[in-house]
């Protein structure tokens, strides 16, 4: 229940093509995250899956059945929106129960379903309130509850944490991960935040300009990126890109993650420290070098380095990635 299959899906608004042929398989029970910079088409793709937008071409298969022409309500999916989108005139309970009521489910059953969902999200005490009387975090929990109540084949999340503050974002992220384990349902989650993608996903789909750049597990994308875009997008702080020629390495660009760049006296890259960020558990040192530009070095623990002092850097050759002039990975 809940396997999704996209076959060369395209979407154009007028003459602008926003989705340029996406092929994707999401297995039953999988947590799949669409990630990419704004304007990459990830939200549009989600809305096509939901049925809120029609695909201009290609097929959308849910459990093997083509659903291109099926209305959103009949696709047996639920969606959580960035702006919560709660019905302002209904109480929390009615908000959660509306879809079942529309489907003609008996009142007693709706009551049971809403009670169960409220229990899972500890919303019991808020059931008779209206959305205006709730805080942002509570509203988003109600929105998630509204999705759970329907027991859908497929959960769709459209940047659900973007409007929450940092602490709530982490708490809600953990809650969503727990829900995925408890419900075992297929979930598709859109975000521009690679941390959310890394922490939640079984499978990450990196999108750019309406095309899939790479699909894989978080660690696969981290350790084995196909191109400079994926390498730069996944991982924080961002991967360093160095000029291969100056290092005597192959390809045009050499990528090295900040934790695989060390400060070592006598190392091959020399530069001056432009800034140091101490985070307690780790220290980020920004080094200006010729001809590579600003490089980030990630050191674990606390370190003292003076700004403007000269240091030498060393790379771990086994952890370096090589890319050609087009940004494609050389293996």
């Amino acid at each position, binding site marked *: 229940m809940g396997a999704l299959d996209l076959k060369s899906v395209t979407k154009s608004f007028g003459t602008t093509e926003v989705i340029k042929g996406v092929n994707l398989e999401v297995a039953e029970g999988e947590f799949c995250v669409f990630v990419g910079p704004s304007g990459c088409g990830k939200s549009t793709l989600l809305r096509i899956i939901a049925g*809120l937008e029609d695909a201009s071409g290609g097929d959308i298969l849910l459990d093997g059945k083509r659903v291109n022409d099926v209305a959103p*309500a009949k696709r047996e999916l639920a969606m959580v929106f960035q*702006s919560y989108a*709660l019905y302002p005139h209904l109480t929390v309970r009615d908000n959660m129960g509306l879809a079942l009521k529309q489907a003609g489910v008996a009142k007693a059953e709706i009551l049971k379903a809403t009670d169960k969902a409220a229990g899972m999200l500890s919303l019991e005490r808020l059931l008779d309130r209206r959305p205006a009387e709730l805080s942002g975090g509570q509203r988003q929990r109600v929105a998630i509850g509204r999705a759970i109540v329907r027991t859908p084949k497929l959960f769709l999340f459209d940047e659900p944490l973007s409007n929450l503050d940092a602490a709530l974002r982490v708490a809600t992220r953990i809650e969503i991960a727990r829900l995925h384990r408890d419900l075992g349902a297929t979930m598709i989650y859109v975000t521009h935040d690679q941390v959310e993608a890394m922490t939640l996903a079984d499978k990450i789909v990196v999108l750019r300009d309406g095309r899939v750049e790479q699909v894989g597990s978080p660690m696969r994308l981290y350790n084995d990126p196909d191109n400079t875009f994926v390498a730069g997008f996944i991982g924080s702080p961002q991967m360093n890109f160095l000029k291969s020629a100056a290092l005597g390495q192959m390809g045009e660009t050499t990528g090295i993650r900040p934790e695989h760049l060390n400060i070592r006296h006598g190392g091959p890259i020399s530069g001056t420290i432009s800034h140091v960020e101490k985070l307690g558990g780790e220290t980020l040192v920004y080094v200006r070098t010729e001809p590579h530009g600003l490089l980030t070095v990630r050191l674990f623990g606390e370190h003292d380095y003076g700004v403007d002092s000269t240091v030498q850097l060393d790379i771990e050759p086994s952890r370096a990635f090589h890319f050609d002039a087009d940004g494609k990975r050389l293996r």
Partner: protein
Amino acid sequence: MAKSRSSTGRTFAAHAILITWTVIALFPVFVTVINSFKSRRAIFADPLALPWPEHFDLVGYTTVLKQGDFFGYFQNSMIVTVVSLFFVLLFGAMAAFALSEYRFKGNTLLGLYLALGIMIPIRLGTVAILQIMVAGGLVNTLTALILVYTAQGLPLAVFILSEFMKTVSDDLKNAGRIDGLSEYAIFFTLVLPLVRPAMATVAVFTMIPIWNDLWFPLILAPAEEVKTITLGSQIFIGQFVTNWNAVLAALSLAILPVLVLYLIFSRQLIRGITAGAVK
């Protein structure tokens, strides 16, 4: 805190300006109402005097209530105004929803076409309208007035409401679609309550010209049993003699219903229930 923005001087100035404006705006109404309670002689002797006991006279009101079917006129005006208003708001909101919500060919063009009526006075078409009403056998019916006023009110309603409907969150409408609400249910239960302040604005702007109109009742429905209040009041204004007591009394009475409707809508203007829907 000495330079706080709400200093006494500023507050005083602001209130002085507002009070001056209020007095100017209400002056004609005030003069009409006080003179309606005076005898004919007192009206001309001192139009600005208050109706003190020595001048107090209800002759205007008794004349109005005795002559002609005044309650009938009231009822006609009320029916025409309320029914036209209902249709303007219903059709205006539906058209505005379609224009703001759905992508289709000629959307912008259609929106401009519907808004064109704001700039072209409907009275230019009076002769044609009269011909249509004669052909349709609608002369001397309230239906004729309702149709004309609905047409007259729609352009502004569509124009204002479509702008407001664009501000209603797409996510909310999409949530409704996923939950299985029909487009009609989305329109009536989600979108309309959120644009209620705009509806009230449109209602006020539509209602007052309809209530005050003399032109179309005179041309399309001059018969006794379908006269509106503004037309009914004209029986007291003659070419040579004008019964000022009666005219002023009739006008004072005519203010009341529209005032009540205005109060109902203005409360809606203030009340915003969007809070908590999104963000």
